[in-house]
C-alpha cells in the first residue's frame, strides 16, 4: 500500500458528549478503489463514514480529535470550509432520500446551489448523471414528475445521480442497499463497481457478501476500534485477527 491515499485518518477519536465512539482510527483509503467498512451494529462504522464529510457535526455535542486528510489536507483544520468539503465528498444515505421535487430538480439541486446558471449546462449534467446511474432510459420521459413516484431502487440510484452531478471526488455510501430488494441491490452494486473508475468509494455495509462482492479493501470495526484492515480477499480468507475471523464466519454479529 505505497500508493498515495485519497483519504487518510490519523489517530481519529470521536466523542458524543462524554461517550467515546471511535478509538484511535488509522485508515488509508486508496483512490479509485472501493473500501468497505463492516462490523456489527453500533460498532461505529456509520459514524466513521459521516466523519469523512463532517456531517456528524449536525449532532450537538460531537467532538473529533485527530486528523482526516483529504488529498493530504486536514478537513478538520480550523478555517476549512465545511461546505466545500461536502461538495468534494458526497454521501448516499441508508434510506433513499430524494427531495419532494421533480426528478430533474433533484439532480439539478447540487448544481443550482453551487451557482450554476447555464440551463444548457444543467440539463446536460442532469442527463449525464442519470445516464451514469443507468436511470436515464427509465425516466427520460418523465423528468418533471415527482421523484417520490419512483421505486425504492430507482430512488436510490437517483440519489447517487444527484451526488454525481456535482462531480465529487469521494462517494460515501451508508448501507445504500439495506432498504432495497435483491434486484435493486444488484443494480446498485453493479453501479458501485463502475463508479470506482472515476471516484473513490467508501461503503458501509452490514452485509458481508456485499462487502466481498463490491470492495477492494475492507476494514472491520468493533466497539469503535478498527480491528483489521486490508485487501478484501485477504480479510475474508485469511484474517489476521481472531475477532475478524469470528465475525466473518458468523459466530457473532
Amino acid at each position, binding site marked *: 500500500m505505497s500508493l498515495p491515499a485519497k483519504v487518510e485518518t490519523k489517530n481519529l477519536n470521536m466523542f458524543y458528549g462524554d461517550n467515546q465512539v471511535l478509538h484511535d482510527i488509522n485508515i488509508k483509503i486508496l483512490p479509485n478503489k472501493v473500501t468497505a467498512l463492516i462490523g456489527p451494529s453500533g460498532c461505529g462504522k456509520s459514524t466513521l463514514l459521516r466523519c469523512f464529510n463532517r456531517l456528524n457535526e449536525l449532532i450537538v455535542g460531537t467532538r473529533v480529535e485527530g486528523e482526516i486528510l483529504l488529498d493530504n489536507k486536514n478537513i478538520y483544520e480550523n478555517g476549512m470550509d465545511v461546505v466545500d468539503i461536502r461538495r468534494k465528498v*458526497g454521501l448516499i444515505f441508508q434510506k433513499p432520500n430524494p427531495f419532494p421535487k421533480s426528478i430533474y430538480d433533484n439532480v439539478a439541486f447540487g448544481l443550482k446551489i453551487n451557482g450554476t446558471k447555464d440551463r444548457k449546462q444543467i440539463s446536460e449534467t442532469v442527463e449525464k448523471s442519470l445516464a451514469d446511474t443507468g436511470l436515464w432510459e427509465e425516466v427520460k420521459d418523465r423528468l418533471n414528475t415527482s421523484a417520490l413516484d419512483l421505486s425504492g431502487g430507482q430512488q436510490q440510484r437517483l440519489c447517487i445521480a444527484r*451526488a454525481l452531478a456535482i462531480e465529487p471526488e469521494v462517494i460515501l455510501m451508508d448501507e445504500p442497499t439495506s432498504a432495497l430488494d435483491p434486484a435493486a441491490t444488484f443494480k446498485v452494486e453493479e453501479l458501485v463497481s463502475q463508479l470506482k473508475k472515476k471516484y473513490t468509494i467508501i461503503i458501509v455495509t452490514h452485509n458481508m457478501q456485499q462487502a466481498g462482492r463490491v470492495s477492494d479493501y475492507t476494514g472491520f470495526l468493533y466497539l469503535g476500534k478498527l480491528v483489521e484492515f486490508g485487501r478484501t480477499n485477504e480479510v475474508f480468507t485469511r484474517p489476521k485477527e481472531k475477532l475478524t475471523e469470528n465475525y466473518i464466519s458468523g459466530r457473532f454479529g
Partner: protein
Amino acid sequence: MKQGRLQQYLGFAILGACALFVVIILFVILYDIAVQGAGTISWSFLSEPPRAGMTEGGILPAIIGTFFVTIITAAFSVPLGVGAAIYLSEYAVEGRLTRWIRASIRNLAGVPSIVYGLFGVALFVRAMSLGTSMVSAGLTLGLLTLPWIITTAEEAFQTVPKSYREGSLALGATTWQTIWRNVLPYAFPGILTGAILGISRAAGETAPILFTGVAFFLPQLPGSLMDQFMALPYHLYIMSTQHHAIEEVRPLAYGTALVLIVLVFFLNLTAIIIRYRLRKKYQR
C-alpha cells in the same frame, strides 16, 4: 370477553356523544345567526355606511376597517413569526436560552387579549406616537397572533424529515440554502395554515383594538392607515350591547355577525384549500 365488549360499546357511545355535542352547539350557533342574519344581508347593507344613529344603512366602513387592519396584522406577524420559528427550529442550539424563549412564547399565548390591548396603547399609541389608528390596532393584533404563528410554524418545520436537511447539506448546501430550498417549501402548507387561522382569529378580536384605534361610528371611510376605523367585531359589540335602541338594531347586529363569520369561514377555507393542494404536491 363479554364485559370487554360492553366497555368498548359504552366508551364508543360516550365519546361519540361528546363529539356530537360539540357539533350540535356549533350548528345551533351557526343556524341562529344564518337564519336571523340572512334577511339583513343585501347589497346596500354591504356597500353603505350606517345612517340615522346606526339604526339604518350598512356596515361598509366596518368591513373595510377589518380588512385593512387584518392585512397590517398579517404583514407584521407572519414574517416576524416565521423568522422566529426558523431561528428556533433550524439555527438555535437547544439549551437554556431556547427553553426560556419557548416558555415565554407559550405564556404569551395565554395572556388575555385585553392585556394586549392595553400594552398596544402603551407601546404603539403612546410610546411610538402612532396614535389611535389602523396601524396601532393592526400591530397590537399582530402581537396577539405572534405566539400562535411562531408555534404553528415551528411545528411545521419539525415535520420536515431530517433526511431532507441532511441530503441537502451533504450536497454542499449551506444551512440557509437548505432552509430556503428544502425546508421552507415542505413546511409551507403548515405555516400558511397556521398563519391564516391565527389571523382569522385576530380579525374577530375586539379587546385589542378597543383602545388602539377602533371607532364607535365613522360616517366616512378611513383615508390613511393613521386614521381611526370601524371594525366588524367592535361594531357587533356596539350593536348588541351599547346601542340606544338595541331591539331595533338587532337585525343589523345579526347581519354583522353573519358577515364576520362568513369572512372568517372564507379565510379558513382558503387555508384548507392551500394546504390540500400543496400537500398533494409535496407529500405522498
